[in-house]
């Protein structure tokens, strides 16, 4: 009840505000004046030629018309009136008419215009006036990647300083976006996304899959697992609706977003109607997806030899003889009799490749229909889309519907109204792809399965030796696919509306209010035909999670723009915003299902459930001041104050200032005459932004329920669940940026270079507390880290001809991340089972036992530190990092990190007449990957099937193999297959031909003949080639999802597919 009344309170002031805004509307509408005939001529500014078919409308009325062949128009209007003149390919012009004399209007062509406008926080700026670091992507940069569910996938490789990783190839799967490196250790690292001015929060949303599968065996586990986000929340924004994307990188650009700007800001603008011609656009594409590469596994014969080898070695280790029969051995050392004659198995080509059972060629289809234009002074963009993507792993499938309506209306010459309504509905079947085979991870089970056994038995049933003491405990992959299900639905309704009132020329008040509603449902099911880790079968369980999220935002800005004496440009803004978010979560689970036929809770006994609500709220004041003198000296200052419900009582409000300067040297007299230089600008900025991505109630000391059983009844005890921290506050990012913009030779060469350093302070760390405190951890503002980097973006027009054009864009980014401070000097925070944050090293550095080689002789063993008295030749030799003479887990040392030394993107666009070809390459260098899947398929334990490289293992000093893989043995006394050694660490560098697109635009004459404005067809291949040494499926894969501390850990992540697409685009 309490929050409801607060909502009403907040609602109250918005109504008041809007009411007071609407009053002048009525006043304005009520004004009366004389109708007059206005006439004139519209011509091109370049050569004065008349423009036929230009649209002339009177703002605030439904008066509109088109120019005739001589460029003339005539219409009735009440003066004073504002005319809006628009024509395709030309900049729209607005003219105030005070008398009835004939007008001569000249329109400036788009191409002559270098004054590209970029959207910055709460406004727009001419690109040439920008003093911060902003990258602008427009439609031409955003070639739709056919199977792209979300726009972030389309940005990959296109923006210097932005690392985009698609960690899951599942339909709608997770994408990580990092702007200028990792900015936070435990808080979120995803940038703030702002759609048409509405901050929708972040991407990601807890898609960490590492613990996903393990928990979903119990009813409570099923409930927990169903809270894991497995569908990228950004997929609610239809890529086809996007007009442009701006990426704000430095503090000068992001500080206006205050406590949410530290990770960078991505501003997305959807398409809106223009005064130009009305068109209807239809687009369709169909594609085929396939696995990029299968893993090269051991042959049946190699497998048989390997199993016997590993188990014999274990039996010898236990004191037996390799020739001893099974009945004297322990079960772990049994060898299947058939494997004693490996020759009976073919060397290759025979046997079961279980990968073929789970991977498939899968269809993706996309339909988009939109209409845009202008009618009676109302500009509209209306779109609808449908996408159906099957995944390349059986049982994965994603369907999505999108709708959007954007309207802009001139109510009077001073008052403008805008309405946006967007809806989205998706449903997904998610495959149980990732994770350990014990948890029935499909990929891991397929790779691990015995290649010598058949898929079906003689009765046509699934064949598995799971429960055979001589077999291996891997469940049949098709049974896994059959008996688990994971279904997700998501509905999203978003509306954002504004009123914009021009109080005076140059002074504008804008007020907007929006609501974003999301309803989300996840349904997990495990039938009774499939079991727990070690059991073949187990009770059926089901878990359901429903989340209703409502977010509202009210923003009010007052903007003043003025050019004084043709030299002084002033652009000032102040604003106020309030936002509140409420998530209602209801979860339940059931078991004891009498049948497997009905996977709904109603068909079982509901045994577990919870219901809770979590909220946050923010209030903000902000201001920005831009001033430029003679287009030469530019200065921008911003200031924001944010108050947030998330932080401690003594630290509720934070202040975020920034200042930036730019100097356009090309405007100086001594450079003005050098025609080769079109633009040369140097920029510098410094500012502070923040990051508030932590739990909603992290500053409070809360109590939780601790149940016990007494007299056979469950009763609830109460116990402390979190430690209070009144001082909890924002993470702060202090960022310096120096940049240069250079355009040469008629803008044929455009270079942007930036250097930056950001120093993050007060990072929120979950500080592990001594167990004696009674708490396991508490969130505190203690950490510091640093990102330093260089970014270059180069756009060149290599060949600009009448028929043939070739342009290139190249960008490269270097980022160095270093942890500067943790809670204590020697502290080491685990960010994953294998990764730590430690002072002096990049965050999420891999800390592992370092393998130096393989012992070849007993003398070598005797001369080196070892972990067990029975270490023998053939076992790994580890580095004794602490120098104490024996090998223990304390010898783990930092051996690498998942962050690339540099990434680059290289795009080339070729066009010949109506044919165009684009090729985009994306590459990452120097990043390490921990192939956790190797713990199953490289462990050399003599159990599961292995990657083919294990066949080349150590067997004897005479047969040392490749030197990479120790001897096969079932025991782990020598850390031979222990998790957390460099055995599983690989170079994750790759170069990927990300996208190849060939398009043909039919000539206008052809299109017109079939009554179309335009017609084009295209063919596209995504992920055509990948060059990498990484042994797993996909060097981009990661099972940590958007948990940045687990970046670079791949436990058989769902691989990214290769996709071949054909499509067509029609305008009519």
């Amino acid at each position: 009840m309490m929050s409801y009344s607060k909502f009403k309170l907040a609602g109250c002031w918005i109504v008041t505000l809007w009411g007071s805004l609407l009053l002048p509307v009525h006043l304005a509408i009520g004004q009366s004046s004389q109708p007059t005939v206005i006439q004139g001529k519209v011509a091109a500014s370049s050569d004065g030629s008349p423009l036929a078919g230009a649209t002339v409308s009177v703002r605030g009325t439904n008066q509109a018309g088109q120019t005739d062949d001589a460029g003339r128009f005539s219409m009735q209007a009440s003066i004073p009136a504002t005319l809006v003149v628009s024509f395709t390919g030309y900049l729209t012009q607005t003219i105030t008419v005070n008398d009835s004399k004939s007008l001569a209007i000249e329109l400036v062509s788009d191409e002559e215009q270098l004054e590209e406008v970029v959207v910055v926080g709460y406004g727009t700026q001419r690109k040439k006036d920008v003093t911060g670091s902003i990258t602008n992507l427009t439609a031409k940069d955003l070639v739709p990647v056919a199977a792209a569910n979300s726009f972030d996938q389309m940005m990959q490789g296109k923006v210097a300083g932005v690392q985009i990783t698609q960690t899951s190839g599942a339909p709608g799967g997770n994408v990580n976006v990092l702007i200028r490196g990792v900015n936070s250790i435990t808080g979120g690292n995803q940038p703030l996304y702002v759609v048409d001015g509405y901050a929708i929060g972040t991407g990601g949303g807890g898609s960490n899959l590492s613990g996903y599968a393990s928990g979903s065996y119990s009813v409570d586990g099923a409930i927990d697992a169903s809270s894991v986000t497995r569908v990228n929340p950004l997929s609610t924004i239809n890529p086809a609706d996007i007009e442009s994307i701006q990426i704000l990188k430095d503090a000068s650009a992001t500080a206006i977003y205050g406590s949410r700007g530290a990770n960078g800001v991505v501003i997305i603008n959807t398409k809106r109607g223009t005064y130009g011609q009305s068109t209807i656009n239809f687009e369709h594409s169909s594609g085929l997806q396939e696995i990029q590469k299968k893993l090269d596994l051991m042959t049946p014969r190699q497998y048989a030899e390997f199993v016997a080898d590993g188990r014999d070695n274990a039996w010898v280790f236990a004191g037996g003889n390799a020739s001893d029969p099974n009945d004297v051995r322990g079960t772990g050392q049994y060898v299947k009799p058939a494997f004693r004659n490996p020759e009976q198995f073919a060397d290759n080509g025979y046997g079961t490749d279980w990968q073929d059972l789970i991977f498939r060629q899968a269809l993706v289809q996309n339909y988009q229909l939109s209409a845009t234009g202008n009618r009676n002074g109302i500009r509209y963009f209306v779109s609808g889309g449908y996408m159906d993507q099957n995944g390349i792993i059986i049982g994965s499938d994603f369907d999505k519907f999108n709708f959007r309506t954007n309207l802009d209306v001139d109510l009077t010459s001073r008052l403008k109204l805008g309405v946006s309504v967007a809806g989205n509905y998706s449903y997904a079947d998610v495959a149980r792809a990732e994770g350990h085979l014990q948890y029935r991870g499909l990929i891991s089970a397929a790779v691990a399965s015995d290649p010598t056994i058949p898929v079906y038995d003689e009765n046509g049933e699934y064949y598995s030796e799971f429960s055979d003491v001589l077999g291996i405990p891997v469940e049949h992959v098709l049974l896994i696919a059959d008996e688990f299900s994971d279904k997700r639905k998501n509905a999203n309704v978003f509306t954002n509306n504004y009123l914009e009132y021009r109080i005076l020329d140059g002074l504008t008040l804008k007020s907007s209010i929006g609501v974003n509603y999301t309803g989300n449902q996840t349904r997990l099911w495990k039938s009774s035909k499939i079991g727990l880790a070690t059991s073949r079968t187990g009770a059926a369980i089901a878990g359901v999670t429903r989340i209703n999220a409502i977010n509202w935002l009210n923003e009010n800005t007052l903007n003043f723009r003025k050019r004084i004496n043709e030299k002084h440009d002033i652009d000032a803004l102040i604003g106020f915003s309030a936002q509140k978010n409420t998530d209602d979560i209801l979860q339940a689970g059931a078991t004891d299902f009498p049948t497997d036929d009905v996977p709904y809770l109603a068909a079982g006994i509901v045994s577990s459930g919870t219901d809770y609500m979590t909220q946050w709220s923010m209030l903000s004041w902000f201001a920005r001041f831009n001033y430029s003198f003679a287009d030469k000296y530019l200065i921008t200052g911003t200031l924001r104050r944010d108050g947030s419900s998330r932080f401690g009582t003594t630290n509720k409000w934070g202040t975020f200032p920034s200042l930036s300067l730019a100097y356009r040297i090309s405007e100086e007299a001594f450079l003005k005459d050098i025609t080769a230089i079109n633009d040369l600008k140097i920029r510098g900025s410094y500012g502070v932004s923040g990051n508030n991505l932590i739990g909603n109630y992290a500053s409070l000391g809360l109590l939780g329920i601790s149940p016990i059983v007494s007299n056979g009844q469950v009763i609830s005890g109460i116990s402390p669940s979190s430690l209070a921290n009144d001082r909890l506050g924002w993470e702060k990012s202090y960022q310096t940026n120096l940049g240069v913009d250079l355009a040469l030779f008629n803008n044929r060469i455009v270079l942007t270079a930036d250097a930056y350093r950001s120093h993050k302070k007060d990072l929120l760390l979950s500080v592990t507390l001594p167990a004696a405190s009674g708490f396991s951890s508490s969130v505190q503002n203690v950490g510091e880290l640093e990102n330093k980097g260089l970014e270059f973006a180069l756009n060149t027009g290599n060949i600009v001809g009448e028929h043939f054009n070739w342009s290139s864009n190249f960008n490269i980014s270097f980022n160095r991340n270093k942890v500067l401070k943790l809670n204590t000097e020697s502290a080491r925070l685990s960010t994953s089972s294998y990764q730590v944050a430690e002072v002096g090293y990049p965050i999420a550095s891999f800390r592992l036992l370092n393998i130096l080689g393989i012992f070849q002789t007993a003398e070598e063993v005797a001369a080196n530190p070892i972990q067990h008295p029975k270490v023998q030749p053939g076992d790994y030799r580890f580095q004794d990092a602490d120098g104490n003479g024996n090998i223990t887990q304390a010898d783990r040392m930092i051996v690498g990190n998942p962050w690339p030394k540099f990434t680059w993107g290289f795009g080339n666009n070729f066009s010949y007449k109506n044919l165009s070809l684009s090729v985009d390459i994306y590459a990452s260098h120097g990043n390490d990957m921990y192939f956790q899947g190797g713990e199953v398929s490289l462990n050399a334990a003599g159990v599961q099937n292995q990657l083919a490289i294990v066949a080349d293992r150590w067997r004897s000093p005479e047969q040392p193999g490749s030197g990479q893989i120790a001897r096969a043995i079932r025991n782990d006394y020598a850390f031979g297959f222990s998790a957390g050694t460099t055995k599983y660490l690989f170079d994750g560098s790759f170069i990927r031909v990300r996208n190849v697109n060939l398009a043909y635009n039919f000539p206008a004459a052809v299109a017109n003949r079939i009554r179309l404005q335009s017609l084009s067809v295209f063919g596209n291949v995504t992920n055509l080639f990948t060059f990498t040494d990484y042994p797993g499926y996909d060097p981009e894969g990661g099972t940590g999802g958007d948990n940045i501390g687990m970046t670079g850990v791949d436990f058989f992540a769902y691989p990214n597919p290769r996709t071949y697409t054909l499509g067509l685009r029609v305008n009519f």
Partner: protein
Amino acid sequence: MKRTHILASILIAASLSACDNFLELNPEHQISNNSFYQNQNDFERALLGAYSSFRGLYSGSAMLYAAELRTDNAEIHWTSPSTDEMQFEQNALTSTNGTVRGIWNTCLRTISRCNTILNRIGNTEFDEQAKNKIIGEAKFLRAFSYFYMVQLFGEVPVTAEEFSSPEQIAEADLTRKPVDAVYQVIIDDLSSAESLLPSTLNSDKTRASIGTVKTLLGKVYLTRGNFDAAATELSEVITSGQYGLHADYGALFSEGNNNLEESILEIQYVRGRGLGNNYSALFTPAITSMAIFPNNLQGSGRITPSLNLFNAYEEGDGRKDVSVNDSVPLINGNKTYARYAMKFVDWDAVATSDGAITFTVLRYADVLLMYAEALNGLDRTDDALAEINKVRDRVGLGDLDGLDKQTCAQAIENERRVEFAFEGHRWFDLLRSGHTREVVNAYYAGKNQNFSVEEYELLFPVPLAEIELNDDLTQNEDY
């Protein structure tokens, strides 16, 4: 006119924003630290919270790994044991062992919950008797946890503070205290609980009564070699008449064993609520076609009885058939050889990791055998034999007599082994008798295994993660 409207509206917005309570959001679904701990009910619930943490020691595998798997009683019979599990079976623990850390954390968490209760209860006003009962039980749980820890880890951190801010934790003294000092805390807590708890028996055996306190105090004194004090405490339990041996030994470990007269402290479980135990999985074999459970359920064989334990039962000992078994009925009607323990196994479980059979932490037979041990320590060997024989009588074994002090001590040790097999006593009993290395090393040798318990391995390593958090925390020698 218009401008004034707009200005006014901005002012309205501004004044509202000044209302900071827009930013004061409390979780409506959770209880806040500040509004709780007010009345008797709150403290009752907080005490249950402490019991809930205490359960953690027993409900999973921790206590059984620590006290059974490491001894001659049990071994792993499972193809994929984890490194942590192997370390227990082989007595080769490292400071990164997750189970060791779990025990450390669980004990200290229980202690901290008790500290919160004991620190806060003084500031409230409610019925004195009820208050004393809560204080007494909290002190019992705290003492139990310290006792468990001091036997396993030796020196441990001791604090009575309630922590309410990061700063306070940073300033606190959380270094390990000498073993004698820890025992003093334990004895003080139990003596205090003895004086606070009502003399009547609490019919709910999941909660400590005065008899529970005396039993534990007797065990503590016995462990310290103070036979006199131990005998006093234990004889008080016996003469109270509140407890007795249950006639049917087998009934102690199967469905319906709640609140039996033999039970002194127990932990109860229910299925399907996340409040089951793991014994059915731990104790039974990893054989898929077994017919011992409905639904073809399978165990994991992680703690299976050793052949050595099988042979430790005397001929005619009624305990053997209800404690252990070596014949597994299969679905096809055949039988196969595999050893497994039967105590606390829930034969009706829906999932083997979710059993509902009550576990008995302390029971009357323990009191009798401890009393015998104390008497024997006081050179009253004949009186000691009389106590042992009460336990033997129940299971159809003949009386012992005519033993000297040393053979009597050995007889008690043997009796305890079979009486309490798989109940989490063996390791502690061996420690008390000083036989751990001798017995366990002989057991390994008997199995032709190259493992051993070294002197330093009589103590657990301190979890490395805790040492990394707190530089002042020392590691046990040789780890």
